[in-house]
């Protein structure tokens, strides 16, 4: 089957169908952590009927759930269990961090057994602030997640995102402070002794994103070809160099990979 690199008629229309189905049947995992669980339950109950959105089936087993609502404080002891539950859920899956405790640790931030936010161990899609959030807020969070799901694509990227590469080749995960400079400068006095940030190059990504920011599974064709050639070369070198010392070919292949 042909592999699509860019969205086309087939993928976009199937995307539409699947995204419509996924967003309209978000089954949450029955996973109450703390106080927010009560408000989560209230959301499912008669007054704020979550079932209206097709999200009312609280699956007790993680195998049948689509979205995990992390409702409450995550302790370090629970974090391991939560990660396991997340891994048990089948793809595609989403996570809503409900309440400040799940976002950052909240009032228990400085506790010795409290995880500072669920996003330290599992990827979070939607954050719903509040302590606890009102049921309306949770419903809004679910609708936000629905909007996010609507934008999902099977192939291609949502938008070419800027990759931030520093002078020395390291990649910035977040936008550096300088990007927001215009907003903050002039309003609050800057402290002395702050060095200017390293120069940052911004690339418009087209077609091929830098390897560090793609998922592991996807390797562009050209790179695959290159890697194959390198492997062949390394094999040939190893066969030729059998008579030589055993360490050398290994070193060579490593070097070749590094170059790529």
């Amino acid at each position, binding site marked *: 089957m042909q592999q699509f690199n860019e969205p086309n008629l087939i993928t976009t229309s199937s995307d539409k169908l699947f995204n419509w189905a996924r967003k309209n049947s978000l089954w949450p995992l029955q996973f109450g952590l703390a106080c927010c669980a009560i408000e989560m339950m209230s959301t499912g109950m008669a007054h704020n009927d979550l079932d209206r959105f097709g999200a009312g089936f609280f699956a007790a087993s993680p195998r049948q759930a689509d979205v995990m609502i992390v409702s409450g404080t995550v302790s370090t*002891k629970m974090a391991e269990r939560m990660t396991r539950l997340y891994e048990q859920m089948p793809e595609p899956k989403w996570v809503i961090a409900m309440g400040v405790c799940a976002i950052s640790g909240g009032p228990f931030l400085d*506790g*010795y057994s409290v995880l500072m936010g669920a996003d330290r161990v599992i990827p979070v899609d939607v954050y719903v602030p509040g302590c606890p959030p009102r049921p309306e807020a949770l419903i809004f969070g679910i609708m936000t997640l629905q909007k996010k799901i609507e934008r999902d694509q099977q192939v291609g990227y949502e938008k070419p995102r800027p990759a931030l590469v520093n002078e020395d080749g390291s990649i910035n995960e977040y936008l550096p402070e300088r990007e927001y400079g215009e907003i903050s400068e002039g309003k609050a006095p800057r402290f002395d002794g702050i060095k200017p940030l390293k120069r940052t190059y911004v690339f418009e990504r087209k077609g091929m994103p830098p390897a560090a920011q793609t998922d592991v599974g996807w390797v562009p064709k050209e790179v695959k070809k290159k890697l194959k050639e390198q492997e062949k070369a390394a094999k040939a070198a190893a066969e030729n160099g059998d008579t030589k010392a055993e360490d050398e070919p290994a070193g060579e292949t490593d070097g070749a990979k590094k170059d790529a």
Partner: protein
Amino acid sequence: MAVTLPEGDLGSRLERYLEGLRSRHGLEDSAIEGNVVRILTDPDSVPAVLTTARETLGVFHLSFITVVDRVGSFELTYELMDLRGASVRVKTVVEGTEPVVPTVTNIYPTANWHEREAYDMFGVAFRGHPDLRRTYMWQDHFDHHPLLKSFEISTKRTFEGLR
């Protein structure tokens, strides 16, 4: 089936508890404050005092055991209630940083988890406890006893800090 709770009015009952405990254990530092009989005893005679309280005087309910870390020594409070308005508060002070106290689980079975909690939070060991494990924290990944004063968490929020 039936449990008979102590009878009589509050004042006479308090007197009875105080007298009963004093006559058997020779407690000097003991008094009645409000509806509470306050008793200070040494750690090794705690089980004896509590046995008297439960078996002879009929104070059936152990409400809680509080441990206070007085840096260098530990203060234990056993709060007993007779379920009819009077309380017996037994205090004891244990010296040392790794104290061992005799257990009271054979007198008040409900002390089981209270003592486990105290062990978890303060490292106070209870001699003869049937099941001394940690209640809250990891059994094997967490080597601290978090409520000790020597265990500090990052932020102390007071007026001094705000100014």
